[in-house]
């Protein structure tokens, strides 16, 4: 028997590093794998059980491998509007946006979250950014080269990041910090818990209501313990994080998003606000404008798969005898109870309900372009 667990891809050249919660994960019985340069928990009791727990209660995820960056200085908004296609000037204090880092040709270097701080947190820095773990050093290098001297970037590698996700996440976090109940989706704020300064946003990447909590590495074990003592909360591994985000229809960088794919085809419309589309002035704007005018060559779509056999990343997608695309994320969806996939297909085959075929180990299986998310989002928005 041989496995080819794609999330357990180990970067053999570099020794894996330990995250601040490493010993905590092991004590909780996690199975650890190499991911993005770190030992990470892939599962505790099993992906199906952990996935279900998060959909019904609240799951605690360690996402400390992600890069947490601070920006401050004169002209920081203008500098970031060159690097990001999003409206940074219009970003109000304690608000967060999904954005992307584009290369000169408009290809996607990373997707990220960007927030305006409140003027006091993190020593008065202006902007807080969370980027993917596997790309963080490349992102930092890319941005440093393009930021003016007046803007300072600080990589907070002594800061851990937890995500608490699920319908009971709000109730659970309020048991420790009652004021967090006032946050709504994509809002963030500073809080103090037992003397520890936290920066908490109401967001996540599972499709559920929930929070991301930035905490000093020295205090993260204490916080993780306090959260897991609550009846609603259990630790959840990377495996379930991936199946949850796939059901939520959210793209994963390095799989569904890459420099090769089109920003407009990725459907991150909400990452590029109207003013930025029209005015431009960001790296990669030419391609974005061209694709807005002409349409992208291909699109990121959801795929419902007939039968029980999952289609994985890399499986070719056919319309009759012609290959029209490729699966970029795929697996068994525990909440849906069937295999699902995300992939890129050429524009004429991207409409909802288009019948396609996916080739898995030489066999064709029937698939249909399906609306995403596969499981409805349950974000807590303003009433």
């Amino acid at each position, binding site marked *: 028997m041989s496995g080819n667990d794609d999330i357990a891809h180990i970067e053999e050249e570099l020794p894996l590093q330990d995250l601040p919660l490493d010993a905590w994960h092991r004590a909780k019985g996690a199975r650890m794998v190499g991911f993005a340069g770190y030992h990470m928990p892939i599962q505790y009791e099993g992906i199906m059980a952990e996935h279900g727990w998060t959909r019904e209660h609240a799951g605690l995820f360690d996402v400390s491998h992600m890069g947490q960056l601070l920006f401050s200085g004169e002209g920081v908004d203008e500098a970031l509007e060159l690097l990001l296609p999003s409206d940074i000037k219009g970003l109000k204090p304690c608000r967060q946006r999904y954005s992307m880092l584009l290369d000169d040709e408009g290809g996607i270097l990373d997707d990220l979250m960007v927030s305006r701080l409140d003027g006091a947190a993190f020593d008065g820095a202006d902007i807080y950014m969370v980027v993917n773990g596997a790309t963080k050093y490349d992102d930092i290098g890319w941005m440093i080269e393009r930021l003016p001297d007046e803007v300072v970037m600080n990589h907070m590698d002594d800061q851990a990041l937890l995500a608490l996700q699920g319908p009971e996440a709000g109730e659970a976090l309020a048991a420790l910090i009652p004021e967090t109940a006032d946050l709504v989706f994509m809002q963030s704020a500073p809080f103090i818990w037992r003397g520890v300064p936290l920066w908490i946003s109401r967001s996540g990447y599972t499709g559920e209501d929930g929070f991301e909590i930035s905490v000093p590495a020295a205090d993260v074990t204490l916080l993780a313990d306090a959260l897991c003592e609550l009846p609603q909360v259990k630790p959840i591994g990377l495996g379930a994080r991936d199946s949850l985000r796939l059901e939520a229809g959210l793209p994963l960088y390095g799989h569904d998003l890459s420099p090769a794919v089109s920003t407009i085809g990725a459907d991150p419309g909400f990452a590029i606000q109207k003013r930025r589309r029209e005015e431009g002035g960001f790296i990669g704007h030419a391609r974005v404008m061209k694709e807005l005018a002409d349409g992208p060559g291909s699109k990121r779509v959801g795929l419902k798969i007939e039968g029980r056999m*999952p289609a994985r990343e890399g499986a070719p997608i056919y319309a009759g005898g012609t290959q029209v695309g490729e699966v970029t994320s795929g697996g068994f969806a525990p909440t849906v109870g069937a*295999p699902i996939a995300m992939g890129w297909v050429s524009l004429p085959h991207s409409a909802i309900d288009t019948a396609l075929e996916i080739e898995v180990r030489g066999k064709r299986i029937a698939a249909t372009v399906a609306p995403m998310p596969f499981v409805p989002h349950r974000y807590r928005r303003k009433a």
Partner: protein
Amino acid sequence: MSRYFTEEHEWIDVEGDIATVGITDYAQEQLGDIVFVELPAEGTSFEKGDDAAVVESVKAASDVYAPISGEVVEANGALEDEPALVNSDAEEDGWFFKLRIGDASELEGLMNEAAYKKFVASL
């Protein structure tokens, strides 16, 4: 009946000229929740080491090799409806397929249960 084990985490029960093949409890534990098993059709002939079946967990697909040569005489249809049988009963009801043994000498050199336990402990 004798039971043999491979370093690829298959078990083989031999009764007369028929071998029943499955994956070990250790293997199912490593794979996690199993959601699909692709089994060979009856009448398929394998050489030792051929891809014989595929077991899919939530996250990944893994190949199962034919541990010895032979012809498939039966596949475990119960796994079609209930792939999780491999998790709950890997070494009995969760068997994959039965082979008519092609070359019994290939069984020589495979591990017995004690040797397999020692092998797993060393991993």
